């Protein structure tokens, strides 16, 4: 319709007409001629070569009939800005404009776009010439991980080309076909509306957070209501009474940069908007091979034999890898656990999954063979030709089945219960005898998972004996070292690059990491770079999930509402992970137990891990949160109702309140009371229905809350603290390193190993460094990161360790650098360092502003650069002394006629420590709530009748990520409970509040319509069933 006109227009702009045209290559598939038909069949097209008018330039590409436009753009032509995520037209990441109209390039055959005018993100603008959408999007943090960004930017450009003044509703309607995994939807909408205004010639409005209520806490706090700390410059830490300099010498006073809302660092953020952020999935070489997997269709089987002979002869196939010819993966002995069977470990001993290409298949979707071929399609053709002879074995994939008599024994006669742990206080039976009210509850969590938008994967490339890996994970040195061990080469021969991730969530990195050794092997034996991007349905079987749990409570309370006895029993399905993660012990799960039992005299908690043929458990955007806390939060509400108490009042009676001298809770920053009280105030809890379902009419609103205790970011020590040396010298020490460099231009570059998954942690660290170095803004701070050739050795992040431990290393470096700058200035200015002050990129005499020297001049005097390396280490007593609490208040509306419900609004409350950058923190937390909403409402990617992930083959139609139409209005409440152990009172947000969301939603639905959902997930059919039961 449009193509011809637009094409002529393009031609008028000087594009050679002759270059355009479709040339069909004779078919490779011979078309049959119908017997006796007078009609001669034309020749069908199986491959052709055409010109494409992309971003005003003409490109020519040859492709098969089945080749998608995305493959021509990103693989054949190297226009890698367009990301492919779901590959099933269910996310929008790959959108491009064709003749001004948005299409999903993953779901458009290349032949459809031949000769037509295509616009990709590269054509919207580049870093030197940013389109308003890109510039304003960067300023408003409209991209966290950035993997969806290229898609919506292009669609929004298409909208603005036609409508320079779109309403919010029009923007939402236009962008409805774009999933933002990080739920930056409010910023995206604002970006499009602001961009339109700027394009109309109006002035942009200032960049501000959307919805933050910031409750500042005093530097010296009150022990009467919450954790606190005494006045003075010193802090007595924990049971060993270690004396620590409060705030590490950097008090949260007279701050200039910390606490300011500002966009993320440009070098990290802007490439997300221009299509230049180098995700592993964007790495491309012209001679690259593409790897694809054959996966096991059975939940449990043993491979008797594999025949790959036909596959190996298929066109374009370079290599086929199975258990028969896979290289032996050398394992580092794991000293912390004992187990039979092979395990792959990393230096921190936290990663315990079977090596890739096992012969025994423990879950549907396990990888059986890997094919490397010229294209993904050719690899898949070969996969289809592999014959596998399985011995299909009986399986058990749910807790219900594992408990059933006669369940198959997956552990060779040892029983499927891997182990149980018990913790207790008092005598629980005596407690029940003393109670006025005793109630029992049972809750089921079906499992959940956080799927990153970026397809998990990597690229491996050898140059002689040197290997480069572009990976997707949460650190670069530990995986590099583990890979070196696996390959039997020196770590220094491997360059590991991982700068941007389209998120990892803990769940995603393993799906990439598990295959690094095999990708390196394939690249070595084929002599070509090899790339893997897991299709989403196959990826699901490789991700770590929040496992299925069954929780039983028996609770005894006095009439006044005090719990006197509590029995908690939790059963978990842990897949084939027999050691590590959820099978290693309650870990973080003790947090919720502690939150509510600190004042309960008699309690008992039993944790039992069962081996199953379910997906493997582990961190999945937080670790041991929703899967254990969903039940606690529902139980607290049900018990409150039993006792006739308001849920907040009931929680207030029980929550932990650290007090001086009570070594059980050595927390100096723990805003348990404020989180509930301030959150309730901001949310408007007083307007809650007194009676569940009490409102009249068809649409009923309800309010609910959930609360959570979590680690406030795993802590440790920085170099210079007394505990550092011994911890850092341990064989499996978890040491972080950072380098800071001042150049002759006076600019400060931080060199940090950690990749950025969208939390923009480097931005927060940069603001702290700017503050430490006396700047009044962040403009002089740069970051170079995610590359073993650039950044010093450092451990990886999880458990909020970026700001605490990578922070420890970086702040330590800044502290050293500051001291060094003073010393150099003193020498140069021939004065005493004590008479100098640091300010705005220079060192100045306190009493004579003219006696001054800039950082740049100091660097030049010192030979060009001044460097400092800082270090931090995990572990030690401090790890457990930093806790966070959070809460989530939600309002929902239930349609009592249809069972439909809407998530209206949420108040998300965080015990934050000092907030370094409210704007960036807000962006992260908005995504956290939406993520947890998805976990609460979407079934686990595991079929209950035919266990497996195969039916997840329709992309995000079967893993329903919330769209721009589905998200609630959010208010973030920051309670900056200053952590006196750390620089400026910093602690990690650490997704503390994420565990509160599912319980809050279930409680709100109950409050709205009287339907109590004890079986996760929260679905419309369960609400409807509850409403029907109520009516009968």
């Amino acid at each position, binding site marked *: *319709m449009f193509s011809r006109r637009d094409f002529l227009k393009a031609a008028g702009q000087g594009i050679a007409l002759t270059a355009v045209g479709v040339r069909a290559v004779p*078919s490779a*598939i011979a*078309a*049959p001629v*119908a017997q006796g*038909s007078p*009609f001669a*069949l*034309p020749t*069908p*097209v*199986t491959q052709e070569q055409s010109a494409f008018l992309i971003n005003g330039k003409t490109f020519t590409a040859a492709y*098969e*009939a*089945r080749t*998608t436009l995305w493959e021509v753009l990103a693989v054949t032509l190297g226009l890698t800005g367009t990301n492919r995520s779901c*590959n*099933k*037209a269910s996310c929008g990441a790959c959108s491009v404009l064709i003749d001004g*109209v*948005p*299409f*999903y390039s993953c*779901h*458009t*055959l290349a032949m*459809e776009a031949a000769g037509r005018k295509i616009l990709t993100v590269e054509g919207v603008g580049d870093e030197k010439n940013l389109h308003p959408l890109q510039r304003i999007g960067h300023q408003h943090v409209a991209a966290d991980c950035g993997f969806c960004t290229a898609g919506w930017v292009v*669609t929004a450009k298409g909208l603005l080309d036609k409508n320079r003044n779109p309403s919010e509703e029009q923007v939402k309607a*236009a962008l*409805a*076909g774009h999933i933002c995994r990080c739920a930056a939807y409010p910023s995206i909408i604002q970006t499009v509306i602001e961009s339109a205004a700027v394009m109309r010639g109006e002035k942009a409005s200032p960049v501000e957070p959307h919805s933050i209520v910031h409750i500042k806490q005093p530097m010296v706090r009150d022990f009467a209501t919450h954790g606190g700390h005494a006045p003075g410059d010193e802090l007595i830490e924990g049971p060993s009474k270690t004396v620590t300099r409060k705030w590490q010498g950097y008090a949260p006073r007279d701050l200039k940069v910390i606490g300011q809302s500002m966009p993320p660092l440009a070098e990290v953020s802007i490439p997300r908007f221009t299509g230049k952020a180098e995700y592993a999935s964007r790495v491309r070489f012209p001679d690259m091979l593409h790897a694809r997997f054959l996966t096991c269709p059975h939940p449990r089987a043993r491979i008797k034999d594999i025949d790959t002979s036909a596959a190996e002869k298929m066109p374009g196939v370079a290599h086929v890898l199975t258990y028969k010819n896979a290289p032996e993966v050398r394992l580092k002995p794991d000293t912390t656990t004992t187990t039979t069977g092979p395990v792959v470990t990393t230096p921190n001993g936290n990663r315990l999954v079977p090596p890739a290409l096992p012969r025994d298949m423990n879950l549907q979707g396990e990888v059986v063979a890997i094919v490397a071929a010229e294209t993904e*399609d050719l690899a*898949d053709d070969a996969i*289809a030709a592999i014959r596998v002879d399985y011995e299909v074995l009986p399986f058990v994939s749910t807790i219900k089945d594992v408990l059933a008599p006669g369940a198959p024994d997956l552990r060779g006669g040892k029983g499927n219960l891997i182990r149980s742990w018990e913790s207790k206080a008092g005598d629980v039976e005596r407690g029940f005898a003393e109670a006025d009210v005793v109630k029992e509850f049972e809750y089921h969590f079906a499992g959940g998972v956080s799927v990153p938008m970026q397809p998990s994967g990597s690229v491996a490339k050898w140059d002689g004996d040197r290997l480069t890996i572009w990976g997707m994970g949460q650190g670069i040195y530990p995986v590099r070292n583990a890979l070196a061990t696996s390959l039997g080469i020196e770590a220094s021969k491997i360059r590991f690059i991982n700068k941007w991730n389209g998120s990892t969530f803990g769940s995603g990195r393993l799906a990439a990491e598990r295959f690094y050794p095999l990708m390196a092997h394939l690249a070595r034996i084929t002599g070509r770079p090899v790339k893997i991007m897991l299709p989403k*349905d196959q990826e699901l079987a490789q991700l770590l999930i929040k496992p299925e749990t069954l929780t039983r409570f028996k609770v005894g309370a006095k009439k006044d509402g005090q719990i006197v006895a509590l029995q908690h029993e939790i059963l978990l399905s842990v897949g084939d992970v027999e050691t590590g993660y959820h099978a290693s012990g309650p870990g973080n799960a003790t947090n919720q137990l502690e939150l509510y039992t600190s004042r309960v005299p008699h309690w008992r908690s039993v944790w039992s891990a069962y081996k199953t043929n379910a997906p493997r458990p582990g961190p999945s955007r937080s670790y041991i949160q929703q899967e254990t806390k969903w039940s606690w939060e529902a139980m607290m509400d049900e018990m409150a109702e039993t006792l006739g108490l308001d849920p907040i009042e009931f929680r207030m009676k029980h929550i932990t309140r650290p007090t001086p001298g009570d070594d059980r809770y050595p927390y100096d920053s723990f805003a348990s009371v404020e989180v509930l009280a301030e959150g309730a105030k901001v949310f408007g809890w007083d307007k809650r229905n007194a009676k569940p379902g009490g409102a009249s009419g068809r649409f009923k609103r309800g309010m609910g809350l959930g609360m959570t205790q979590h680690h406030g970011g795993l802590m440790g020590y920085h170099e210079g603290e007394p505990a550092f040396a011994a911890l850092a010298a341990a064989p499996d020490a978890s040491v972080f390193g950072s380098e800071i460099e001042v150049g002759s231009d006076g600019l400060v570059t931080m060199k940090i190993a950690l990749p950025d998954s969208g939390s923009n942690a480097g931005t927060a660290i940069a603001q702290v460094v700017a503050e430490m170095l006396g700047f009044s803004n962040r403009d002089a701070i740069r970051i170079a990161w995610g590359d073993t050739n650039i950044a010093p050795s450092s451990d990886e992040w999880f458990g909020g360790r970026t700001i605490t431990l990578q922070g420890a290393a970086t702040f330590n470096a800044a502290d050293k650098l500051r001291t060094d700058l003073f010393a150099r200035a003193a020498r140069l200015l021939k004065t005493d360092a004590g008479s100098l002050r640091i300010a705005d990129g220079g060192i100045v005499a306190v009493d004579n502003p003219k006696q001054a020297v800039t950082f740049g001049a100091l660097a030049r005097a010192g030979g060009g650069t001044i460097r400092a390396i800082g270090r931090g280490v995990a572990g030690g007593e401090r790890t457990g002394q930093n806790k966070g609490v959070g809460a989530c208040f939600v309002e929902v509306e239930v*349609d009592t*006629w*249809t*069972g439909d419900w809407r998530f209206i609004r949420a108040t998300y409350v965080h015990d934050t420590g000092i907030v370094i950058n409210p704007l960036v923190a807000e962006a992260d937390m908005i995504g956290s709530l939406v993520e947890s909403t998805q976990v609460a409402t979407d079934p686990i990617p595991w*079929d*209950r*009748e*035919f266990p497996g992930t*195969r*039916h*997840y*083959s*329709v992309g995000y*139609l079967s893993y*329903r990520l919330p*769209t*721009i*139409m*589905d998200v609630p209005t959010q208010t973030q409440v920051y309670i900056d409970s200053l952590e006196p152990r750390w620089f400026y009172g910093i602690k990690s947000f650490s997704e503390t509040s994420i565990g509160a969301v599912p319980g809050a939603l279930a409680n709100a639905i109950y409050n709205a319509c009287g339907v109590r959902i004890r079986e996760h997930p929260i*679905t*419309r*059919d369960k609400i*409807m069933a509850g409403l*029907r039961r109520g009516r009968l």
Partner: protein
Amino acid sequence: MKKIAVYRPTSTDEAIRILSSHGTEAAVYAGGTDLLVRLKNRLKQAPAYLVDIKKINDLRYIREDQSGGVRIGALTKLAEIVDSEIIAKRYPMLSKAIGMISSPELRNASTLGGDLLQEVWCQYLRGGYNCWRNGGYLCYGAIGDNSYYHSAMGGRLCYAVYPGDAATALIPYDAAVKLATPTGVQELSLEKLVPGDLMVDGRIQSHVVRHNEILTEVIVPPPRPNARTSFEKLRPRGVWDFAMAALALNLEMRGSVIDDARVVFGGIAGKPVRERAVEDYLRGKTLDAALIDQVVPRALTNAAPLKYNAMKIEMAKGLLASGLDTLRT
């Protein structure tokens, strides 16, 4: 993606001849939004030969006909129907229903013909299970997780729900389609086009179009005077998702009295379910709250839910109450 060979005929006659030559190995290719998913998943049932009908002139239009009705070419994009002023003004329920299909980008690609004739979205078929529609002799949905994509109204062989919303919204307008066949043009009502799972050319499908026939046009009769329509769709998310239950309601009113009614449910059975018992009951009655209470229990009385999908029926009944309530003003 499976290997494909693509023909680009320039006339329906040529397309039909090509289709006839290949039997069930070939299929019509238009927007491709459904077909590409099946090809990407390498389903056995996915065709090896695609007959691209987009080079055939004049299958993409929305025009008024002499009767005052509207003709929509089968290749008309869903987005074009949503954007059409004629449709919005005269057939608002069609605008609304099609505006709620999939996502904006997919509506730019999908055609009306493709939406009507799309394959079911049963997760077992799409996941490559060896089911009735994929070369096997079993319905996994009947015994598997049937909470969403499977019929609560019984089935014959395949229990998958017919997923198209356009058909649900067109039936209450008494719409019909034109098929180009080897023996000439045929016309049949929309209701007869999608009668649910049945064997055609040795395959299970939801519609009656044979492998060598091409749907070319949708004929929508003139809207009735004093008609009030309502389309309701229940789905987990506001974009993309198929109906858990849907309802299309077309009431011809005389004041507050219902002169005639069309009541069609979607998303609950292997076909759009026209509830004639409800239509008969409504006819001649005053539309008020009492009528809603009386009529809802009379809907879908022959439901036959599977293990996990009984609530589809309750939701559908809720939609009927909601739809009638919306039209009661």
